[in-house]
């Protein structure tokens, strides 16, 4: 590491921050690695849980929403319809839950060691991303099973994954920073996640939402993300409601930028307040 002249003055913002983030880039990996390792320590079937969980959820959803509620599925095998929406939703909800408690959970690090605190919620989102990738493998398996192949729209998938990541980060940054000062969020987040599951197009397709409510419904940023995922993966007749999609995208960007701003602003008081 080259030596650098560092001047810290009370009240002035830190210009070194982004350079610091790069210097500590390995820490992203290590914290995420730690969280994943710890999950499966002293378990009998270990890493297989990573595959089992999304599989079981998918089965339950298919039975409940597909067979029992008989919601329409636009000509696509129901499990795939559910799974293609569940993928981004699980990513978002896990990322939100984990990152909201990430700062509190690492309180001992925050009060004893220096590194850019942004690493902590980001590594929680990375852990959820790893789960996302594993579930993606299951989706692949499902597509092989049903002999269903996606269209050229698959190309949009990486961009949509980035958007999902941004949504998870934006919400995570806001909540984790606020949770340090106001521990109420520990109780609010599980409720939001549960509620969100029903107002996001996971168990149903967005086409069942009546036109006049469409824009209001799209205020939920995950609507855009999930619709986008469905559009990219399912091809054929899946249409994308463009105004709603753009609204959701705008919201995701807004969440991320303001989340970053708020986090940086309160970061300097973390060690004193946590």
């Amino acid at each position, binding site marked *: *590491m080259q*030596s*650098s*002249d*560092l*001047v*810290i*003055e*009370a009240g002035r913002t830190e210009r070194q921050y982004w350079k610091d983030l790069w210097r*500590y880039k*390995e*820490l992203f990996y*290590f914290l995420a690695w*730690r969280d994943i*390792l*710890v999950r499966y*320590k*002293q378990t009998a079937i270990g890493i297989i849980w990573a595959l089992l969980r999304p599989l079981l959820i998918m089965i339950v959803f298919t039975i409940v929403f597909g067979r029992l509620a008989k919601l329409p599925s636009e000509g696509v095998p129901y499990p795939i319809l559910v799974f293609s929406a569940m993928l981004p939703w699980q990513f978002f909800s896990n990322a939100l839950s984990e990152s909201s408690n990430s700062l509190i959970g690492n309180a*001992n*690090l*925050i*009060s*004893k*060691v*220096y*590194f850019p605190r942004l690493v902590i919620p980001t590594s929680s989102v990375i852990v959820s991303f790893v789960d996302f990738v594993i579930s993606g493998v299951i989706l692949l398996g499902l597509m092989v099973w049903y002999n269903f192949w996606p269209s050229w729209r698959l190309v949009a998938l990486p961009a949509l994954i980035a958007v999902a990541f941004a949504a998870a980060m934006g919400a995570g940054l806001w909540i984790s920073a*606020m949770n340090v*000062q*106001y521990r109420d969020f520990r109780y609010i987040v599980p409720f939001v996640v549960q509620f969100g599951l029903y107002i996001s197009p996971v168990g149903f397709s967005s086409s069942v939402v009546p036109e006049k409510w469409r824009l209001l419904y799209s205020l939920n940023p995950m609507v855009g993300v999930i619709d986008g995922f469905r559009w990219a993966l399912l091809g054929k007749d899946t249409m994308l409601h463009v105004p709603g999609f753009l609204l959701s995208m705008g919201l995701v960007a807004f969440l991320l930028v303001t989340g970053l701003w708020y986090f940086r*602003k*309160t970061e*300097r*008081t973390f*060690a*004193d307040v946590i």
Partner: protein
Amino acid sequence: MSDTIIQVENLGKKYIISHQTPGRYTALRDVIADKTKKLTRNILSPFRKIESDSSKEEFWALKEVSFEVKQGEVIGIIGRNGAGKTTLLKILSRITEPTAGRFRLKGRVSSLLEVGTGFHPELTGRENIFLNGAILGMGKAEIKRKFDEIVAFAEIEKFLDTPVKRYSSGMYVRLAFAVAAHLEPEILLVDEVLSVGDAAFQKKCLGKMGDVSREGRTVLFVSHNMGAVRQLCSSIILLDHGRIVGAGSVGSLIDQYLRGISASYSSSPETPTKFLRAIEFIDSSSHKVDSILAGSGGSFRVHYEVDGDVLTNVCVTIAVYDLTGIKAVQLTTDHAYEKLTIEMLSGKGYIDCQMDAILLTPGQYRVNVAFDGHKGNGAFHDGIVNGCQLTVMPSDYFGTIRMKTNEEGFVLVRQRWIVEGGSHNSF
């Protein structure tokens, strides 16, 4: 070579302490309204000025702290609990932000405020080495390179792959220190982490710290262990209530610190004693004094008062300590080949321990006295802690007025030096 590596100017750190106020609101509506107002204000502008609120008090943990550290120096930061030492290190480590002032650092900083930061009990020793190393700022390649050294230093080869939650506390601490000891920063900030492990390991740690300073790194070292501070540091900063009250040479500042501590000890006993009333020092001309010349004679006089009781088999012990708490000498009736006891003691009087020559080196000493024996059917124990203070002053015991202080040992020994063989000049 000796350019300024750390420069601190007028550093200050303020905390707000809240106190409980008696409830001013009785209606739930008022409580909710008040809380909502406060909440929205806090979320939207976390940095607004604190209004004068009688339930909050400002506390300056550090105030107007300025100093400079040159490359290669090992600076000891000492002070009582609550003086601001850890706060200073936290600010220099960038864990918390200063409220006032500024500082400049030239070089990579590693701080050790606690051993085992980031250790996860479920992970194995091997995994924790990587995790802890990464948290402290080492890269993966660097950790891999030093892995074997770290394991050898910690002496836990056999237990590398067991989860750390199964380690004994000694092993845990050895592993934590081993990882931290292999950091290679330009600036190292250490906070009282050397007092871990058994005596052999402590020696190893001190040795390693010595190596670090010999390699030319700059170290800021907070400790309560005056022995370690004396051994490792080239100069000292003394903090008291958040301010610097002294900076400079090791010996004089340690004494200043210790004198500050012993001044807060009262010479009257803290707990009521049963039979002991006081202890004092009487010199050879029967005057009560609190300082004597080294090598002179005198006695310790222990005053007792036994009301209405008769004590049997009484044994007296006087212990003389230096200000750091190390025992210099113990005088007791239970010494050498036989145990002298006072077979019967009652009423009021004193017991003298007469010494022809007290061979203690110059310095400050504190004296404790203890009384043991039987009363009626049972045994009793009585004691006075810090019953009196004694200052030994340099004298001409060695034929000259030159004499070293008790930092270099407690005993005066008359010595002769002779050299033989080779070709030489005499002493």
